[in-house]
Protein backbone atom coordinates (compact mmCIF):
# COMPACT_ATOMS: atom_id res chain seq x y z
CA UNK A 1 0.00 0.00 0.00
CA UNK A 2 1.56 3.28 -1.06
CA UNK A 3 0.80 6.60 0.53
CA UNK A 4 -0.39 7.86 -2.84
CA UNK A 5 -2.54 5.03 -4.04
CA UNK A 6 -5.48 4.38 -1.83
CA UNK A 7 -6.47 0.78 -2.28
CA UNK A 8 -9.85 0.37 -0.73
CA UNK A 9 -9.84 -3.30 -1.51
CA UNK A 10 -6.53 -3.97 0.19
CA UNK A 11 -7.66 -1.99 3.19
CA UNK A 12 -10.94 -3.86 3.47
CA UNK A 13 -9.09 -7.16 3.37
CA UNK A 14 -7.36 -6.19 6.58
CA UNK A 15 -10.64 -5.95 8.49
CA UNK A 16 -12.11 -9.38 9.19
CA UNK A 17 -15.37 -8.05 10.63
CA UNK A 18 -16.29 -6.55 7.27
CA UNK A 19 -17.03 -10.08 6.10
CA UNK A 20 -19.60 -10.56 8.83
CA UNK A 21 -23.13 -11.39 7.82
CA UNK A 22 -25.82 -10.23 10.21
CA UNK A 23 -29.54 -10.74 10.72
CA UNK A 24 -30.96 -12.71 7.79
CA UNK A 25 -27.56 -13.36 6.28
CA UNK A 26 -27.15 -9.76 5.19
CA UNK A 27 -23.71 -8.33 4.44
CA UNK A 28 -22.68 -6.01 7.24
CA UNK A 29 -22.61 -2.35 6.23
CA UNK A 30 -20.86 -0.71 9.15
CA UNK A 31 -21.60 3.00 9.28
CA UNK A 32 -21.16 3.59 13.01
CA UNK A 33 -17.52 4.63 12.94
CA UNK A 34 -17.94 7.76 14.99
CA UNK A 35 -18.96 5.47 17.87
CA UNK A 36 -16.04 3.12 17.41
CA UNK A 37 -14.05 1.90 14.41
CA UNK A 38 -13.25 -1.64 13.43
CA UNK A 39 -9.75 -3.09 13.91
CA UNK A 40 -7.39 -4.37 11.24
CA UNK A 41 -5.58 -7.70 11.49
CA UNK A 42 -2.40 -5.81 12.26
CA UNK A 43 -3.90 -4.58 15.55
CA UNK A 44 -5.61 -7.84 16.42
CA UNK A 45 -2.41 -9.79 15.74
CA UNK A 46 -0.43 -7.40 17.90
CA UNK A 47 -2.72 -8.11 20.84
CA UNK A 48 -2.47 -11.85 20.33
CA UNK A 49 1.29 -11.70 19.99
CA UNK A 50 1.58 -9.61 23.13
CA UNK A 51 -0.42 -11.99 25.29
CA UNK A 52 1.16 -15.08 23.75
CA UNK A 53 4.76 -13.96 24.06
CA UNK A 54 5.47 -10.90 26.15
CA UNK A 55 2.76 -10.24 28.71
CA UNK A 56 4.09 -8.67 31.92
CA UNK A 57 3.52 -5.74 34.20
CA UNK A 58 5.76 -2.80 33.41
CA UNK A 59 8.12 -0.16 34.77
CA UNK A 60 9.16 -1.80 37.99
CA UNK A 61 10.73 -5.16 37.18
CA UNK A 62 14.06 -6.15 35.69
CA UNK A 63 13.12 -9.50 34.17
CA UNK A 64 13.04 -10.09 30.42
CA UNK A 65 9.28 -9.91 29.84
CA UNK A 66 8.97 -6.77 31.94
CA UNK A 67 11.75 -5.08 30.01
CA UNK A 68 10.19 -6.00 26.68
CA UNK A 69 6.76 -4.80 27.79
CA UNK A 70 8.06 -1.59 29.30
CA UNK A 71 9.91 -0.75 26.14
CA UNK A 72 6.95 -1.51 23.89
CA UNK A 73 4.71 0.58 26.13
CA UNK A 74 6.99 3.58 25.83
CA UNK A 75 7.35 3.07 22.09
CA UNK A 76 3.64 3.81 21.74
CA UNK A 77 4.21 7.11 23.50
CA UNK A 78 6.97 7.94 21.03
CA UNK A 79 4.78 7.03 18.08
CA UNK A 80 1.97 9.25 19.32
CA UNK A 81 4.46 12.09 19.74
CA UNK A 82 5.56 11.68 16.15
CA UNK A 83 2.04 11.17 14.78
CA UNK A 84 0.75 14.39 16.31
CA UNK A 85 3.96 16.41 16.27
CA UNK A 86 4.33 16.62 20.03
CA UNK A 87 7.75 17.85 21.14
CA UNK A 88 7.90 16.43 24.66
CA UNK A 89 6.98 12.80 25.07
CA UNK A 90 6.41 13.30 28.80
CA UNK A 91 3.42 15.48 27.96
CA UNK A 92 1.55 12.39 26.76
CA UNK A 93 -0.55 10.79 29.48
CA UNK A 94 -2.28 7.46 28.91
CA UNK A 95 -5.85 7.33 30.18
CA UNK A 96 -8.92 5.18 29.52
CA UNK A 97 -10.40 7.43 26.86
CA UNK A 98 -11.34 10.98 25.94
CA UNK A 99 -13.83 11.05 28.80
CA UNK A 100 -11.20 10.29 31.40
CA UNK A 101 -8.79 12.75 29.81
CA UNK A 102 -11.28 15.60 30.15
CA UNK A 103 -12.27 14.62 33.67
CA UNK A 104 -8.62 14.54 34.64
CA UNK A 105 -8.24 18.15 33.51
CA UNK A 106 -11.49 19.21 35.18
CA UNK A 107 -10.29 17.70 38.41
CA UNK A 108 -6.53 18.25 38.53
CA UNK A 109 -6.35 21.60 36.76
CA UNK A 110 -9.90 22.85 37.20
CA UNK A 111 -10.17 22.51 40.96
CA UNK A 112 -7.17 24.78 41.47
CA UNK A 113 -7.62 27.23 38.63
CA UNK A 114 -11.32 27.94 38.32
CA UNK A 115 -13.02 29.97 41.01
CA UNK A 116 -16.26 31.69 41.76
CA UNK A 117 -16.80 34.44 39.22
CA UNK A 118 -14.71 32.77 36.55
CA UNK A 119 -16.19 31.56 33.29
CA UNK A 120 -15.74 28.23 31.53
CA UNK A 121 -16.87 28.21 27.90
CA UNK A 122 -18.06 25.21 25.95
CA UNK A 123 -20.30 24.84 22.89
CA UNK A 124 -23.74 23.62 21.93
CA UNK A 125 -22.30 20.81 19.85
CA UNK A 126 -20.19 19.17 22.52
CA UNK A 127 -20.31 15.55 23.49
CA UNK A 128 -21.53 14.99 27.07
CA UNK A 129 -17.91 14.22 27.96
CA UNK A 130 -17.03 17.82 27.31
CA UNK A 131 -20.07 19.26 29.09
CA UNK A 132 -20.79 17.27 32.23
CA UNK A 133 -17.27 17.60 33.76
CA UNK A 134 -17.57 21.37 33.37
CA UNK A 135 -21.05 21.42 34.86
CA UNK A 136 -19.70 19.52 37.86
CA UNK A 137 -16.70 21.85 38.14
CA UNK A 138 -18.62 25.09 37.78
CA UNK A 139 -21.37 23.96 40.14
CA UNK A 140 -18.78 23.02 42.73
CA UNK A 141 -16.74 26.19 42.44
CA UNK A 142 -19.46 28.70 41.73
CA UNK A 143 -18.01 29.56 38.33
CA UNK A 144 -20.24 30.12 35.32
CA UNK A 145 -20.65 27.78 32.33
CA UNK A 146 -21.34 29.51 29.02
CA UNK A 147 -22.15 27.98 25.65
CA UNK A 148 -21.18 29.09 22.16
CA UNK A 149 -24.33 28.60 20.08
CA UNK A 150 -24.44 27.17 16.59
CA UNK A 151 -25.99 28.73 13.49
CA UNK A 152 -28.27 27.07 10.96
CA UNK A 153 -25.34 25.51 9.13
CA UNK A 154 -24.18 23.84 12.31
CA UNK A 155 -21.22 26.16 12.72
CA UNK A 156 -20.21 27.96 15.87
CA UNK A 157 -21.12 31.62 16.25
CA UNK A 158 -17.65 32.77 17.25
CA UNK A 159 -18.77 36.33 18.00
CA UNK A 160 -20.20 34.87 21.19
CA UNK A 161 -16.75 33.64 22.12
CA UNK A 162 -15.41 37.18 21.58
CA UNK A 163 -18.09 38.47 23.88
CA UNK A 164 -17.30 35.97 26.63
CA UNK A 165 -13.57 36.56 26.31
CA UNK A 166 -14.04 40.31 26.51
CA UNK A 167 -15.26 39.96 30.10
CA UNK A 168 -11.73 38.93 31.06
CA UNK A 169 -13.22 36.20 33.22
CA UNK A 170 -12.79 33.20 30.93
CA UNK A 171 -10.36 30.68 32.40
CA UNK A 172 -10.97 27.85 29.96
CA UNK A 173 -12.56 27.17 26.61
CA UNK A 174 -13.39 23.47 26.18
CA UNK A 175 -14.26 22.75 22.59
CA UNK A 176 -14.47 19.94 20.06
CA UNK A 177 -12.11 19.87 17.16
CA UNK A 178 -14.84 18.08 15.19
CA UNK A 179 -18.48 17.63 16.21
CA UNK A 180 -19.46 13.99 16.63
CA UNK A 181 -23.02 14.63 15.43
CA UNK A 182 -22.75 17.27 12.70
CA UNK A 183 -19.23 16.54 11.58
CA UNK A 184 -18.52 20.27 11.66
CA UNK A 185 -14.81 21.05 11.73
CA UNK A 186 -14.25 23.82 14.25
CA UNK A 187 -12.21 26.81 13.13
CA UNK A 188 -9.83 25.76 15.85
CA UNK A 189 -6.82 27.89 14.95
CA UNK A 190 -8.99 30.95 15.14
CA UNK A 191 -10.52 29.89 18.46
CA UNK A 192 -7.12 29.25 19.96
CA UNK A 193 -5.73 32.56 18.74
CA UNK A 194 -8.60 34.46 20.30
CA UNK A 195 -8.12 32.67 23.60
CA UNK A 196 -4.35 33.11 23.66
CA UNK A 197 -4.81 36.84 23.16
CA UNK A 198 -6.54 37.11 26.51
CA UNK A 199 -4.73 34.29 28.30
CA UNK A 200 -7.62 31.83 28.46
CA UNK A 201 -6.64 28.17 28.33
CA UNK A 202 -8.00 25.93 25.59
CA UNK A 203 -8.90 22.27 25.89
CA UNK A 204 -9.57 20.58 22.56
CA UNK A 205 -11.68 17.43 22.43
CA UNK A 206 -10.07 15.71 19.47
CA UNK A 207 -11.96 12.41 19.69
CA UNK A 208 -13.42 12.95 16.21
CA UNK A 209 -10.45 14.77 14.71
CA UNK A 210 -7.33 12.66 15.30
CA UNK A 211 -8.85 9.60 13.59
CA UNK A 212 -9.88 11.54 10.49
CA UNK A 213 -7.36 14.24 9.62
CA UNK A 214 -3.81 15.37 10.14
CA UNK A 215 -3.50 16.98 13.58
CA UNK A 216 -0.38 18.94 14.46
CA UNK A 217 -0.39 19.77 18.14
CA UNK A 218 2.72 21.91 18.08
CA UNK A 219 1.21 24.24 15.50
CA UNK A 220 -2.23 24.31 17.15
CA UNK A 221 -0.98 26.03 20.25
CA UNK A 222 -3.72 24.77 22.55
CA UNK A 223 -3.17 23.75 26.17
CA UNK A 224 -4.91 20.37 26.46
CA UNK A 225 -5.82 17.85 23.78
CA UNK A 226 -7.78 14.62 24.28
CA UNK A 227 -8.64 11.62 22.11
CA UNK A 228 -9.49 7.89 22.20
CA UNK A 229 -7.70 4.95 20.57
CA UNK A 230 -10.86 2.95 19.84
CA UNK A 231 -12.09 5.56 17.36
CA UNK A 232 -8.92 5.22 15.26
CA UNK A 233 -8.46 1.47 14.71
CA UNK A 234 -7.04 0.94 18.20
CA UNK A 235 -8.32 -1.18 21.09
CA UNK A 236 -10.94 -0.08 23.61
CA UNK A 237 -9.78 1.19 26.99
CA UNK A 238 -7.02 3.55 25.84
CA UNK A 239 -7.06 7.29 25.44
CA UNK A 240 -4.57 10.09 25.54
CA UNK A 241 -4.40 13.39 27.33
CA UNK A 242 -1.79 15.72 25.97
CA UNK A 243 -1.07 18.84 27.99
CA UNK A 244 1.69 21.41 28.17
CA UNK A 245 4.45 20.42 30.54
CA UNK A 246 4.20 23.61 32.63
CA UNK A 247 0.54 22.86 33.23
CA UNK A 248 1.04 19.20 34.07
CA UNK A 249 3.89 20.06 36.40
CA UNK A 250 1.71 22.39 38.41
CA UNK A 251 -1.38 20.21 38.47
CA UNK A 252 -2.30 18.10 41.47
CA UNK A 253 -2.42 14.36 40.82
CA UNK A 254 -5.72 12.85 39.72
CA UNK A 255 -5.69 9.32 41.09
CA UNK A 256 -3.35 8.06 43.80
CA UNK A 257 -1.64 4.68 43.70
CA UNK A 258 1.22 2.74 42.19
CA UNK A 259 3.54 4.27 39.59
CA UNK A 260 2.46 7.86 40.17
CA UNK A 261 4.54 8.23 43.33
CA UNK A 262 8.20 8.87 44.02
CA UNK A 263 8.31 8.11 47.73
CA UNK A 264 5.45 7.10 49.98
CA UNK A 265 5.71 7.53 53.71
CA UNK A 266 2.94 7.09 56.24
CA UNK A 267 1.94 10.71 56.19
CA UNK A 268 3.62 12.27 53.22
CA UNK A 269 4.20 11.35 49.65
CA UNK A 270 6.04 12.85 46.72
CA UNK A 271 5.03 12.50 43.09
CA UNK A 272 6.77 10.80 40.25
CA UNK A 273 8.00 12.64 37.15
CA UNK A 274 5.76 13.36 34.20
CA UNK A 275 3.85 11.64 32.69
CA UNK A 276 3.79 8.97 35.41
CA UNK A 277 2.43 11.35 38.02
CA UNK A 278 -0.90 11.02 36.18
CA UNK A 279 -0.74 7.31 35.40
CA UNK A 280 -1.75 5.67 38.67
CA UNK A 281 -2.07 1.92 38.87
CA UNK A 282 -1.32 -0.80 36.35
CA UNK A 283 -2.05 0.82 33.01
CA UNK A 284 -3.93 -0.91 30.21
CA UNK A 285 -0.55 -2.33 29.17
CA UNK A 286 -1.59 -4.66 26.36
CA UNK A 287 -3.89 -2.19 24.67
CA UNK A 288 -1.48 0.72 24.89
CA UNK A 289 1.18 -1.45 23.28
CA UNK A 290 -1.15 -2.57 20.48
CA UNK A 291 -2.36 0.96 19.87
CA UNK A 292 1.03 1.44 18.18
CA UNK A 293 -0.06 -0.94 15.42
CA UNK A 294 -3.09 1.28 14.75
CA UNK A 295 -0.92 4.36 14.50
CA UNK A 296 1.43 2.55 12.15
CA UNK A 297 -1.51 1.54 10.01
CA UNK A 298 -2.85 5.08 9.72
CA UNK A 299 0.62 6.46 9.13
CA UNK A 300 1.14 4.05 6.28
CA UNK A 301 -2.10 5.12 4.61
CA UNK A 302 -1.36 8.75 5.32
CA UNK A 303 -3.80 11.01 7.15
CA UNK A 304 -4.25 13.23 4.12
CA UNK A 305 -5.44 10.21 2.19
CA UNK A 306 -7.78 9.26 4.99
CA UNK A 307 -9.22 12.73 4.87
CA UNK A 308 -9.66 12.84 1.11
CA UNK A 309 -11.28 9.41 1.02
CA UNK A 310 -13.78 10.57 3.62
CA UNK A 311 -14.39 13.89 1.92
CA UNK A 312 -15.15 12.13 -1.34
CA UNK A 313 -17.57 9.76 0.36
CA UNK A 314 -19.28 12.57 2.20
CA UNK A 315 -19.67 14.55 -0.99
CA UNK A 316 -21.14 11.51 -2.71
CA UNK A 317 -23.51 10.78 0.17
CA UNK A 318 -24.69 14.35 0.58
CA UNK A 319 -25.44 14.63 -3.11
CA UNK A 320 -27.45 11.45 -3.18
CA UNK A 321 -29.20 12.09 0.09
CA UNK A 322 -30.24 15.59 -0.89
CA UNK A 323 -32.43 13.95 -3.53
CA UNK A 324 -34.29 11.70 -1.10
CA UNK A 325 -37.75 13.01 -0.34
CA UNK A 326 -38.43 13.71 3.32
CA UNK A 327 -34.80 13.62 4.39
CA UNK A 328 -33.53 16.39 6.65
CA UNK A 329 -29.76 16.69 6.95
CA UNK A 330 -28.21 18.51 9.92
CA UNK A 331 -24.87 20.27 9.80
CA UNK A 332 -22.64 21.63 7.06
CA UNK A 333 -23.61 20.78 3.50
CA UNK A 334 -20.09 21.48 2.28
CA UNK A 335 -17.96 18.32 2.63
CA UNK A 336 -14.84 20.47 3.01
CA UNK A 337 -16.25 21.88 6.22
CA UNK A 338 -17.15 18.56 7.77
CA UNK A 339 -15.72 15.21 8.59
CA UNK A 340 -17.31 11.94 7.40
CA UNK A 341 -20.37 12.16 9.61
CA UNK A 342 -23.93 12.73 8.39
CA UNK A 343 -26.81 13.26 10.78
CA UNK A 344 -30.32 13.12 9.38
CA UNK A 345 -33.97 12.53 10.03
CA UNK A 346 -36.38 10.83 7.70
CA UNK A 347 -39.84 12.35 7.57
CA UNK A 348 -41.22 12.16 11.10
CA UNK A 349 -40.06 8.60 11.68
CA UNK A 350 -38.22 8.32 14.96
CA UNK A 351 -34.51 7.52 14.41
CA UNK A 352 -34.81 4.41 16.56
CA UNK A 353 -37.35 3.03 14.17
CA UNK A 354 -35.24 3.95 11.16
CA UNK A 355 -32.19 2.23 12.63
CA UNK A 356 -34.11 -0.91 13.57
CA UNK A 357 -35.64 -1.25 10.13
CA UNK A 358 -32.44 -0.73 8.15
CA UNK A 359 -30.52 -2.96 10.53
CA UNK A 360 -32.55 -5.79 9.02
CA UNK A 361 -30.67 -4.99 5.85
CA UNK A 362 -27.33 -5.26 7.63
CA UNK A 363 -26.89 -1.50 7.78
CA UNK A 364 -25.44 -0.37 11.11
CA UNK A 365 -26.01 3.30 11.84
CA UNK A 366 -26.47 5.01 15.15
CA UNK A 367 -29.73 6.60 16.23
CA UNK A 368 -30.33 8.58 19.35
CA UNK A 369 -28.90 11.65 20.98
CA UNK A 370 -25.27 10.65 20.35
CA UNK A 371 -24.32 11.90 23.82
CA UNK A 372 -25.18 15.38 22.64
CA UNK A 373 -28.52 16.21 24.23
CA UNK A 374 -27.77 19.92 24.37
CA UNK A 375 -27.40 19.87 20.59
CA UNK A 376 -30.60 17.81 20.21
CA UNK A 377 -32.44 20.44 22.24
CA UNK A 378 -31.02 23.11 19.93
CA UNK A 379 -32.02 21.22 16.79
CA UNK A 380 -35.40 20.68 18.42
CA UNK A 381 -35.35 16.95 17.84
CA UNK A 382 -35.41 14.04 20.27
CA UNK A 383 -32.77 12.24 18.28
CA UNK A 384 -31.16 11.88 14.86
CA UNK A 385 -29.82 9.12 12.67
CA UNK A 386 -26.10 9.26 12.17
CA UNK A 387 -24.09 7.54 9.45
CA UNK A 388 -20.34 7.86 9.90
CA UNK A 389 -17.62 6.70 7.55
CA UNK A 390 -14.05 5.51 7.80
CA UNK A 391 -11.13 4.37 5.71
CA UNK A 392 -12.88 1.16 4.62
CA UNK A 393 -16.29 2.62 3.74
CA UNK A 394 -17.36 2.30 0.10
CA UNK A 395 -19.78 4.18 -2.10
CA UNK A 396 -21.76 0.97 -2.50
CA UNK A 397 -22.29 0.97 1.25
CA UNK A 398 -23.61 4.51 1.07
CA UNK A 399 -25.96 3.33 -1.67
CA UNK A 400 -27.20 0.47 0.49
CA UNK A 401 -27.94 2.92 3.29
CA UNK A 402 -29.94 5.17 1.02
CA UNK A 403 -31.79 2.29 -0.62
CA UNK A 404 -32.72 0.96 2.79
CA UNK A 405 -34.60 4.13 3.56
CA UNK A 406 -37.18 3.02 1.05
CA UNK A 407 -38.05 0.15 3.32
CA UNK A 408 -38.60 2.60 6.10
CA UNK A 409 -40.98 4.51 3.88
CA UNK A 410 -42.78 1.29 3.09
CA UNK A 411 -43.20 0.22 6.70
CA UNK A 412 -44.41 3.63 7.70
CA UNK A 413 -46.54 3.98 4.58
CA UNK A 414 -44.94 7.30 3.62
Amino acid at each position, binding site marked *: MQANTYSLEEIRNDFPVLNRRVRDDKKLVYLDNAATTQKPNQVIDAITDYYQNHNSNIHRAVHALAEESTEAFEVTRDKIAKFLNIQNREEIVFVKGTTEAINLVAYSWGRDNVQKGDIVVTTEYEHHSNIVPWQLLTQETGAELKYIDIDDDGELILEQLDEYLSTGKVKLVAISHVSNVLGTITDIHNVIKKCKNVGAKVLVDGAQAVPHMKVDIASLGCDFYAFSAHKMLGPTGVGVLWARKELLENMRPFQGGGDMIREVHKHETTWNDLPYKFEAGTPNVADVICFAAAIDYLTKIGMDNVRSHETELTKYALEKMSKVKGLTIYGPKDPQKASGVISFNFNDVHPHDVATIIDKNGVAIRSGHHCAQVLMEKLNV*AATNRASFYIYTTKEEVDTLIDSLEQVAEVFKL
Partner: protein
Amino acid sequence: MSGDPIYTEMIIEYSRNPSNYGKIEDAHITRHDSNPLCGDSIDLYLNIDDKKISDVKFDGKGCAICMACSSVLTEMIKGKSLEDVKKFEKDELLSELGLEHLIKTSPVRIKCALLSLKALKYGIYSYFAEKMNDVESAGNLKEEAANLY
Protein backbone atom coordinates in the same frame (compact mmCIF):
# COMPACT_ATOMS: atom_id res chain seq x y z
CA MET B 1 -41.32 -6.01 4.99
CA SER B 2 -44.79 -7.45 5.54
CA GLY B 3 -44.91 -9.66 8.58
CA ASP B 4 -42.32 -7.50 10.33
CA PRO B 5 -42.25 -8.75 13.91
CA ILE B 6 -42.00 -5.26 15.35
CA TYR B 7 -43.57 -2.80 12.96
CA THR B 8 -47.06 -4.24 12.74
CA GLU B 9 -49.94 -2.26 11.33
CA MET B 10 -51.14 -1.67 14.85
CA ILE B 11 -47.87 -0.19 16.02
CA ILE B 12 -47.53 2.07 13.00
CA GLU B 13 -51.12 3.19 13.44
CA TYR B 14 -50.70 3.98 17.13
CA SER B 15 -47.44 5.81 16.48
CA ARG B 16 -49.21 8.06 13.98
CA ASN B 17 -52.29 8.53 16.15
CA PRO B 18 -51.41 7.89 19.76
CA SER B 19 -54.30 7.48 22.20
CA ASN B 20 -54.56 9.62 25.29
CA TYR B 21 -51.82 11.89 24.04
CA GLY B 22 -51.72 15.21 25.81
CA LYS B 23 -51.45 16.75 29.22
CA ILE B 24 -53.72 16.77 32.25
CA GLU B 25 -53.40 20.14 33.97
CA ASP B 26 -52.91 19.80 37.73
CA ALA B 27 -52.91 16.03 37.49
CA HIS B 28 -52.87 14.17 40.79
CA ILE B 29 -49.78 12.34 39.69
CA THR B 30 -47.24 13.51 37.11
CA ARG B 31 -44.25 11.36 36.37
CA HIS B 32 -41.43 12.11 33.98
CA ASP B 33 -39.18 9.40 32.73
CA SER B 34 -36.61 9.09 30.00
CA ASN B 35 -34.40 6.58 28.40
CA PRO B 36 -30.83 7.67 29.00
CA LEU B 37 -29.55 5.56 26.15
CA CYS B 38 -31.69 6.87 23.32
CA GLY B 39 -33.36 10.05 24.49
CA ASP B 40 -36.98 8.85 24.52
CA SER B 41 -38.67 11.05 27.05
CA ILE B 42 -42.26 11.07 28.26
CA ASP B 43 -44.50 12.55 30.92
CA LEU B 44 -47.37 10.51 32.32
CA TYR B 45 -50.36 12.22 33.96
CA LEU B 46 -52.80 10.41 36.21
CA ASN B 47 -55.89 11.42 38.09
CA ILE B 48 -57.03 9.15 40.88
CA ASP B 49 -60.57 9.22 42.20
CA ASP B 50 -62.09 6.62 44.44
CA LYS B 51 -58.90 4.57 44.25
CA LYS B 52 -59.42 4.31 40.52
CA ILE B 53 -57.54 5.79 37.57
CA SER B 54 -60.15 8.31 36.58
CA ASP B 55 -58.06 9.85 33.84
CA VAL B 56 -54.68 9.26 32.22
CA LYS B 57 -52.69 10.98 29.48
CA PHE B 58 -49.11 11.09 28.29
CA ASP B 59 -46.97 13.30 26.14
CA GLY B 60 -43.35 13.52 25.07
CA LYS B 61 -41.11 12.27 22.33
CA GLY B 62 -40.43 8.68 21.50
CA CYS B 63 -40.15 6.10 18.81
CA ALA B 64 -43.06 4.16 17.34
CA ILE B 65 -42.69 1.40 19.90
CA CYS B 66 -42.69 3.84 22.78
CA MET B 67 -45.68 5.72 21.40
CA ALA B 68 -47.68 2.57 20.71
CA CYS B 69 -46.94 1.05 24.09
CA SER B 70 -47.78 4.25 25.91
CA SER B 71 -51.04 4.49 24.01
CA VAL B 72 -52.03 0.93 24.75
CA LEU B 73 -50.95 1.18 28.37
CA THR B 74 -53.06 4.26 28.99
CA GLU B 75 -56.04 2.59 27.27
CA MET B 76 -55.62 -0.52 29.40
CA ILE B 77 -55.43 1.18 32.76
CA LYS B 78 -58.01 3.90 32.35
CA GLY B 79 -60.84 3.22 34.79
CA LYS B 80 -58.95 0.42 36.52
CA SER B 81 -58.57 0.29 40.29
CA LEU B 82 -55.23 1.12 41.82
CA GLU B 83 -55.09 -2.46 43.14
CA ASP B 84 -55.34 -3.81 39.61
CA VAL B 85 -52.81 -1.35 38.27
CA LYS B 86 -50.45 -2.32 41.04
CA LYS B 87 -50.53 -5.89 39.80
CA PHE B 88 -50.36 -5.02 36.11
CA GLU B 89 -47.47 -6.92 34.51
CA LYS B 90 -45.29 -6.08 31.54
CA ASP B 91 -46.32 -9.24 29.70
CA GLU B 92 -49.91 -8.02 29.53
CA LEU B 93 -48.76 -4.86 27.81
CA LEU B 94 -46.30 -6.52 25.47
CA SER B 95 -48.67 -9.26 24.39
CA GLU B 96 -51.34 -6.74 23.58
CA LEU B 97 -48.97 -5.47 20.87
CA GLY B 98 -47.32 -8.76 20.01
CA LEU B 99 -43.99 -7.56 21.35
CA GLU B 100 -43.18 -10.28 23.91
CA HIS B 101 -40.27 -11.38 21.72
CA LEU B 102 -38.45 -8.10 22.32
CA ILE B 103 -37.45 -9.23 25.80
CA LYS B 104 -35.23 -11.80 24.16
CA THR B 105 -34.39 -10.25 20.82
CA SER B 106 -33.69 -6.65 21.65
CA PRO B 107 -32.41 -5.53 25.02
CA VAL B 108 -32.27 -1.99 23.67
CA ARG B 109 -35.75 -1.71 22.17
CA ILE B 110 -37.45 -3.37 25.14
CA LYS B 111 -36.65 -0.19 27.02
CA CYS B 112 -38.65 1.83 24.52
CA ALA B 113 -41.59 -0.53 24.99
CA LEU B 114 -41.61 -0.36 28.78
CA LEU B 115 -40.75 3.27 29.43
CA SER B 116 -44.34 4.33 30.12
CA LEU B 117 -44.97 1.30 32.32
CA LYS B 118 -41.93 2.25 34.34
CA ALA B 119 -43.27 5.78 34.71
CA LEU B 120 -46.61 4.34 35.80
CA LYS B 121 -45.14 2.09 38.48
CA TYR B 122 -42.94 4.86 39.83
CA GLY B 123 -45.88 7.26 39.65
CA ILE B 124 -48.25 5.21 41.75
CA TYR B 125 -45.43 4.12 44.07
CA SER B 126 -45.24 7.56 45.58
CA TYR B 127 -49.02 7.73 45.70
CA PHE B 128 -49.17 4.50 47.70
CA ALA B 129 -46.43 5.74 49.99
CA GLU B 130 -47.63 9.27 50.59
CA LYS B 131 -51.36 9.35 50.04
CA MET B 132 -52.31 5.84 51.11
CA ASN B 133 -49.59 5.15 53.64
CA ASP B 134 -49.25 1.67 52.20
CA VAL B 135 -45.52 1.26 52.65
CA GLU B 136 -45.43 -2.37 51.63
CA SER B 137 -47.13 -1.85 48.27
CA ALA B 138 -44.99 1.20 47.70
CA GLY B 139 -41.83 -0.76 48.35
CA ASN B 140 -42.87 -3.52 45.99
CA LEU B 141 -43.77 -1.06 43.27
CA LYS B 142 -40.48 0.74 43.55
CA GLU B 143 -38.61 -2.55 43.37
CA GLU B 144 -40.67 -3.62 40.38
CA ALA B 145 -40.10 -0.33 38.56
CA ALA B 146 -36.38 -0.46 39.17
CA ASN B 147 -36.09 -3.99 37.83
CA LEU B 148 -38.44 -3.65 34.88
CA TYR B 149 -35.54 -3.73 32.40
